[in-house]
């Protein structure tokens, strides 16, 4: 066939081939997908914390299509295992790596120091580096909304809290709930039971039962499974879901839920890496930046209350409302925050004391 080609045809063919080839090379360069790594502390099937992050990951995949390639490793134990996994991702040129547990902080830092060209994002921590950011969500803003609703709807005045471990994030949540509840019902109390694990459905259910048997009629939790809410549904009381919408487990009981929304943040950071504008930061986003939201209100929330709750959210967003505004008293009754003063982020992030009305 080549013999039959005349020169013109040959030149045309060559030119055409060259054009296609060069376009191929250009698109190959452009189509080199950015690798994004996710390190999870639990299984994606936990329907809680890790599930939320994985939903964010899927949002990234949906948004960027074949411009990115995501990888995830689940159930990575904190400690040396984590360092190995993070390093492995780094060695495989993952341009952006998200490590989604506080306990990964030191390990992320170590690996970040050794791979200065890659970018790292660490959740719920406080250490950063030139190529390592910290990101966190203002869960307490959601707790304030829940506390307000709880304070209005509780008949016994006792609000139950199934809590995992006494770290500042959990303490903040308990306090925010109590403060908001007591604003509308001054004699409300928050009863806390610690289960010392983020995940053990049967134990969480038992803790919920212990609370309900002692008079609690609104159930909140800072653990991962839907078990406490399920118990609430079965016992005829009301409650709030955690990290994801748990309505399927408690169609009647769920008043609302605090939803972890990591997708937009992840997309934004990834876009910054692609654009070359990524900079290290330490952020703590809330309702305003849409890092969390409340699930649709359940039937038990009357219209007027819904509007009040929405007003709190709107106030949080426009800055007129802050969950930790004084006067705030501690468990001993001493005023620790003066009237009108808002607690600083710094004070919140270290919180290890409880407000009046909390029995923990």
């Amino acid at each position, binding site marked *: 066939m080549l013999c039959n080609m005349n020169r013109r045809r040959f030149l045309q063919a060559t030119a055409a081939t060259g054009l296609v080839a060069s376009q191929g090379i250009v698109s190959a360069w452009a189509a080199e997908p950015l690798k994004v790594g996710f390190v999870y502390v639990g299984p994606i*099937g936990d329907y809680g914390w890790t*599930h939320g992050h994985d939903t964010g990951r899927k949002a990234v995949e949906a948004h960027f299509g074949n411009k990115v390639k995501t990888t995830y490793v689940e159930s990575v134990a904190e400690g040396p295992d984590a360092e190995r996994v993070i390093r492995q991702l780094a060695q495989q040129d993952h341009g952006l790596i998200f490590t989604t547990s506080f306990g990964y902080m030191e390990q992320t830092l170590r690996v970040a120091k050794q791979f200065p060209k890659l970018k790292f994002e660490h959740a719920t921590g406080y250490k950063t580096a030139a190529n390592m950011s910290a990101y966190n969500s203002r869960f307490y803003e959601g707790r304030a909304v829940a506390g307000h609703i709880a304070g209005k709807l509780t008949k016994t005045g006792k609000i139950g809290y199934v809590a995992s471990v006494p770290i500042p994030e959990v303490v903040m949540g308990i306090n925010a709930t109590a403060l908001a509840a007591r604003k509308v019902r001054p004699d409300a109390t928050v009863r*806390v039971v610690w289960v010392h*694990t983020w995940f053990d459905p*049967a*134990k969480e259910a*038992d803790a919920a039962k212990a*609370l309900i048997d002692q008079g609690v009629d609104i159930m909140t939790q800072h653990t991962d499974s839907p078990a406490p809410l399920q118990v609430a549904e079965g016992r005829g009381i009301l409650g709030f879901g955690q990290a994801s919408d748990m309505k399927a*487990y408690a169609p009647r009981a769920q008043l609302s839920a605090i939803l972890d929304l990591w997708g937009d943040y992840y997309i934004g950071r990834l876009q910054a890496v692609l654009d070359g504008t990524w900079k290290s930061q330490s952020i703590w986003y809330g309702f305003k930046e849409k890092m969390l939201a409340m699930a649709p209100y359940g039937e038990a929330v009357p219209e007027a209350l819904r509007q009040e709750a929405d007003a709190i959210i709107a106030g949080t967003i426009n800055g007129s409302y802050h969950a930790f505004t004084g006067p705030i008293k501690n468990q001993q009754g001493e005023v620790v925050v003066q009237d009108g003063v808002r607690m600083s982020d710094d004070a919140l992030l270290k919180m290890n004391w409880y407000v009046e009305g909390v029995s*923990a």
Partner: protein
Amino acid sequence: MGWHMSLELLGSMLLTVVGAATPLLFAALGEVVAERSGVLNLGVEGMMLAGAVSGFATVMVSGNHLLGLLAAAAAGAALALVFAVLTLTLMANQVATGLALTIFGVGLSALAGAGFVGVPVAALPKLALPGLSDLPGLGRLIFGQDMLVYLSLAMTVAVASFLSRSRSGLILRACGESDVAAHAIGYHVIRVRYVAVLFGGAMSGLGGAYLSLAATPMWIENMTAGRGWIALALVAFGSWRAWRICAGAYLFGGVTILQLYVQGAGRLHVPSQIMSMLPYLATIALLTVMASGPWRSRFDAPACLGKPFSPPA
């Protein structure tokens, strides 16, 4: 402690204790039969999870709870069969095989259950006897449980009388105490052990199903959270006797729940980790007391526990 324990509160607390004790009781009863025949199966956690996911999936698909329970028992027994072939026919080391079974079972159940996460299921129905179930305090406790709770207690009676009073139980115990002698008399030791191990697997499966169908009707990966190991400990705690195991399950469950209730009452200000240690320390203390008092009887494990058996010529 200062807080009043009304009958109502006591009844509710005991209800919660029942919920905590039942999965442990099922698994421990199954394991004690296996161990009395001379086989140590450490794969309880894996078998419980297999039962939990199978029971859940079956009820999701068919809507029939009885079918779900059967599926759970079958799944537990199926894993136990793998164990039995390895340890009884191929005479592999029982401790290692049991641990491998746990790893395998955890992984298998997670894979099998991946599609069922986040989907609730109808819980096992509870008994509702008109009049009796509504008695204050103890009404729900005695007459308002689901079928697995009653089954677990029935099985305690059954296993206890089987082991100590029946001829087959005697044969089983002989295989566990002196396999060579049992073989010499003419009993088929391996066959007996097979049945015992399969029974253990089925019971563990039911224990797991209790978690996924009654205690917290859902499926989440790894939802047994270490209860299989507690069940293994309970067998030794109960010195390989069914009634003591039952007492142990309720005691262990009781102390675990008690510390949750005390926390909820908010009166005691002890670091909660110390409170959480109580069930474990109580177990050790009780064992020590049992072993050193004038009431000590033989608390030893079956003599042939863990030893592979090969029929001599």
